[in-house]
């Protein structure tokens, strides 16, 4: 079973890299949807020994929310705010991919230093979860549009979720459902905010919002 786990995790890493390097909003939303799907598959694979109802529910629920509801909400926001082309980010696309490479090395090094209990999901799952968190953070701080930051937030949460699958599989259901609910509300609110920002200011570039006060005074 470990080879399957590893394949799914490698795919997760690859989607993270593509997210770091991609410039089209629609493609990036699709990638986060794929990540949601992969996480759902991973949840079932890790617990393949004894598939219980709650694992199935968790996998189905998270897949539904992450691969169904979020992309739908975000696509709507993109369509209504008309952000077709990404604005050039603070950190260029190729550079962010290279930084992602360094972050991957860092997360593998970090997870080899951490005294964690051995996980039943394989030794790759912890580094990958760290890498997802780092990649999400990088997306949040290096991009200019509010949409990219929402996507970065989602990637970050995917990392936390992966970590949860790896280590906290006993207490998982309640915590994960709570997080999912929070996320749903979060993305919903952010979708609305993106829409409102763009209606007020004709753009959703976050760094230009800092000069908001000056415009009005």
């Amino acid at each position: 079973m470990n080879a399957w786990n590893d394949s799914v995790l490698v795919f997760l890493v690859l989607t993270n890299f593509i997210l770091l390097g991609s410039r089209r909003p629609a493609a990036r939303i699709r990638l986060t949807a794929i990540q949601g799907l992969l996480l759902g598959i991973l949840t079932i694979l890790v617990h393949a020994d004894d598939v219980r109802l709650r694992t199935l529910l968790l996998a189905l629920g998270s897949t539904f929310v992450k691969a169904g509801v979020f992309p739908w909400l975000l696509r709507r926001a993109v369509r209504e705010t008309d952000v077709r082309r990404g604005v050039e980010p603070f950190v260029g696309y190729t550079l962010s991919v290279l930084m992602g490479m360094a972050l991957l090395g860092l997360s593998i090094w970090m997870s080899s230093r951490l005294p964690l209990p051995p996980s039943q999901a394989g030794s790759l799952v912890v580094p990958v979860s760290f890498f997802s968190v780092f990649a999400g953070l990088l997306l949040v701080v290096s991009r200019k549009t509010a949409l990219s930051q929402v996507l970065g937030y989602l990637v970050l949460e995917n990392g936390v979720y992966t970590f949860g699958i790896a280590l906290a599989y006993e207490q998982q259901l309640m915590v994960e459902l709570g997080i999912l609910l929070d996320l749903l509300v979060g993305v919903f609110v952010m979708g609305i905010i993106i829409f409102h920002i763009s209606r007020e200011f004709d753009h959703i570039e976050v760094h230009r919002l800092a000069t908001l006060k000056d415009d009005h005074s």
Partner: protein
Amino acid sequence: MNVAAFLHIAVAMILAPFLLGVINRTKAIFAGRTGQPLLQVYYDLLKLLRKGAVYSRTTTWVFRAGPIVGLAALLTALLLVPFGAQRAPLAFEGDVILFAGLFAVLRFFTVIAALDTGSAFEGMGASREVQFSALAEPALLLGLAALAPLTGSFSLSGMLAGITAHTWLRTGPALALVVAVLLVVFLTENARIPVDDPNTHLELTMIHEVMVLDHSGPDLAFILYGSALKLWTLGVLLVGILLPVQTGPWLDVVLRLAGMIVLAVVTGIIESTMARLRLTHVPQFLAGAGVLSVLALLLALR
């Protein structure tokens, strides 16, 4: 020295241009044309060899040396690559570095021969070639380096012999990444479509073709034959990883030959169905391949 390994060299030298024919035929079928004969590349080679070469007065010996050194480098690289589970005629620990180095020699001489003509065009092509290969080369080296911990060997022969169906089951993701990287390097090095178009003769978009514009006669034949050998050499590497069967000396050879034909057909399909990348996006594409190879290396080392 084993006879079978040298047999592979002979087979490669005879069959390499045939692969170009297969690629062209695949593209022709996709485009709904009849296409040139499968053996057209051989006719071209014979025609070019019978002609005399024309040298511009601005060129020096560097220009004349380019194609010969390039072909010699490729023939040496061919000696390093094993076919099937046979050891290559020239195999030693660390020949991976020499393998990449020989490609660098070939590129260096193609580039300075192009610069030697003093044409602005060829300079442009040379600049692009060097820029892209600077990104493709680390990807190739890191991809091959990832094979070393997986198979416990530092020579190409040991690596390809070390990959079995069992290796695929155990470390499938890392190997798949290496294959993806090698495919990108294969397409880039052979000036194939997502990076370069071997058919284009539009000045602004050529990369490899523009560098050989001034060569003629036997020199051009050497270059054409060299590109066929390059396709074969890198292709053998790819097929060797993808088809880890070790059934017996003869069946192995037949299987790998079939694999090479399939690879040529796949290349033709990629060329027919994909558009060329914008020049500014090529470095990103190659950097992506580099990332894949680093990922493969990290997975292999873990």
